[in-house]
């Protein structure tokens, strides 16, 4: 099963290396990892998506906890959370295919952020599934390059109306 783990950590490359090293050194499977500045200066937020059975995921979160620079580890999987993945997709575009590509973008609420006579670069944001779907719909036009952030996630605060 896929898990989304959010880690609040000291902003240092040593810390990031320790997190990544955990996955290679202990043979855990990592699907995506994102690293960026967190809410406070000097802090970073790392979001990891990883697959494995419950025991493996439990080990991953415990091992993450043990890293001295790690402040907090949360497995968001069983609590409501919001999650986004951002992709930049460069597709081949000809004057004839361009409008069709733009229709696809419309469906996915994707933005066109760069245009040349031969290419379109598209920004799409959403859950991983949505981004995957957008990429697969664009593939027939000829994808030249893709850059993805991997998932970033936070716990959802909105509890619904009661």
């Amino acid at each position: 099963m896929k898990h989304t783990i959010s880690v609040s950590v000291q902003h240092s490359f040593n810390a990031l290396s320790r997190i990544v090293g955990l996955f290679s050194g202990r043979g855990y499977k990592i699907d995506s990892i994102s690293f960026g500045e967190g809410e406070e200066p000097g802090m970073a937020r790392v979001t990891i998506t990883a697959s494995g059975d419950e025991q493996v995921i439990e080990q991953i979160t415990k091992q993450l906890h043990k890293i001295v620079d790690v402040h907090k580890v949360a497995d968001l999987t069983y609590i409501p959370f919001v999650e986004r993945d951002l992709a930049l997709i460069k597709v081949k575009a000809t004057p004839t295919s361009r409008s069709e590509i733009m229709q696809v973008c419309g469906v996915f609420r994707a933005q066109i952020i760069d245009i040349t006579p031969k290419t379109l670069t598209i920004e799409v944001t959403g859950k991983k599934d949505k981004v995957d779907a957008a990429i697969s719909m664009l593939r027939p036009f000829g994808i030249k390059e893709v850059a993805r952030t991997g998932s970033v996630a936070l716990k959802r605060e909105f509890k619904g109306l009661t």
Partner: protein
Amino acid sequence: MSSMTVAAKSKRTNGTQKPNKATPKTEMTGGEILLTTLSDIGVEVIFGYPGGVVLGLYDSIFKLTDKPRHILVRHEQGGTHAADGYARATGKVGVVLATSGPGATNTVTGIATAYMDSIPMVIFTGQVSSEMIGNDAFQEADIVGITRPITKHSYLVMDPGDVESVIHDAFHIASTGRPGPVLIDLPKNTLNGKGVYTGSYKVAIKSYKPSKSGNHPKVAKAAELLNNAKRPLIYAGGGIIQGEASKELTALAKKSGIPVTTTLMGLGCFPETDPQSLGMLGMHGTWCANMAISECDVLLAVGARFDDRVTGNLDGFSQHSKKIHIDIDPSSISKNVAIEVPIVGHVKNILPDLTKLVKKTKIDDWKATIKNWQTVHPLRYKKQKGAIMPQFLIEKISEITKGEAIIATDVGQHQMWVAQLYKFNHPRSMLTSGGLGTMGYGFPAAMGAAVGCPERDVVCISGDGGFQMTAFELATAVEHKIPVKVIILNNGYLGMVRQWQELFFGGRYSHSHLAGGNPDFVKLAESYGAVGMRTDKEEELVPLLKKCMAIKHKPVIFDVLVKQEENVYPMVPAGAALQDMVDTED
């Protein structure tokens, strides 16, 4: 005050805080701050080796008066093992100093050894000047990167003004929670540049809060299981020794009457002369310990980690038991074996809470079963006329030292015979590389222990193979008059390798024969100025052992030629379950 525990504090200061002679708030070089801070912390000894980028620091070692003692080892690996042995024997943090590049990479085996056994250690490495880092400069190695998977934490210190705080933090991290090695990499310009020494830094690491609580909600549940058990067993590991909880463990065992088996790392945490002791369990454990853990109905694991050398095949491991696991490291719990009652915390705080709630168990049937295993399947070996049996040698060492010595071992058959036959009665008495299984560990570790515990007898029981991996430290031991007794169980083979080749590879002794190239260990000792002794006669053994033990102020090498092709039994064949262990050769 920081979150530092009282125990950790006293470990770090060795009880007697030296007056700090350096004036606070003065400018000093990074190297001077380093030495002054170590002195503030109460570090007694550094095991080190100089080189290019640390020459400035070595100059400060030469000049400064208020600083720890420095012992020049003959190889940085020896330095790390010595610091490790010092730490295991004393409970204090071991300290190592090495230069950049090759000096730093030579520490890797020793760091990994300490990491696997959770030994508190701080390693200082020199590094090329910060502006040179990344240029493949002369003697540059990314030692922080190389050691990342084998350190609890590490630092690259860019500013001399940070040296003081980093050292305090490093000692705190190394010695608290589940202990481990911490590496501090110091570029030349950090060591030689100037910074302000405050003399008043207090440790406060926001992200690091090792649990130490007692009052665990699950303790009552654990007590209930134990009180209702018909066949309870305590399985105790190195965490009891690291956590200074031998008394607490013994109190629990005595009040409840529950039998105790220990791991290799736990030897000495419960007196082996006590009738409740079943000895060591695992691959070469006693028959009764392995049967007891296979048959028990409630298993209390404390400060142990269900290592594969202990559990054998996991599918067959202790199938009938409910399991309670007390450990400081949450990641050790339910890692290999599912646990019904997990308790995370410091054993020293949790065991007394548990002891309060347990009752004297009524387990006469269980005790009778255990007694029967002990009588039918004791540790035993056949004597052979004209040869010293290796097991006999260990029994005699145990008798002559009355189980009171600090024993360091190397890795191999001799290590297992020590674990089986030396009667350990005190914690911090068995120094052995359990996790990594590092040959070459024993002798330098014994040296470190002897430096830390000058009042105790320190004996290194080594193999003819392993001793040669760090034998050059004889120079260090002679120079510093470290009276370590090295007893070489000389079987002319890489004995443990030979045993496996005999049993599982059709007797093809591929590259495991040593006798052809072994040095004359007596002459080797004498060439360094140590005492050399040898025997191959059983009747000489005891008098010579006594003579060996009486030598003070000098290291001794006692080469004991034992029966060559003897095997360690009982044994759990690789891949088998504990209850399928093989008792003897025939």
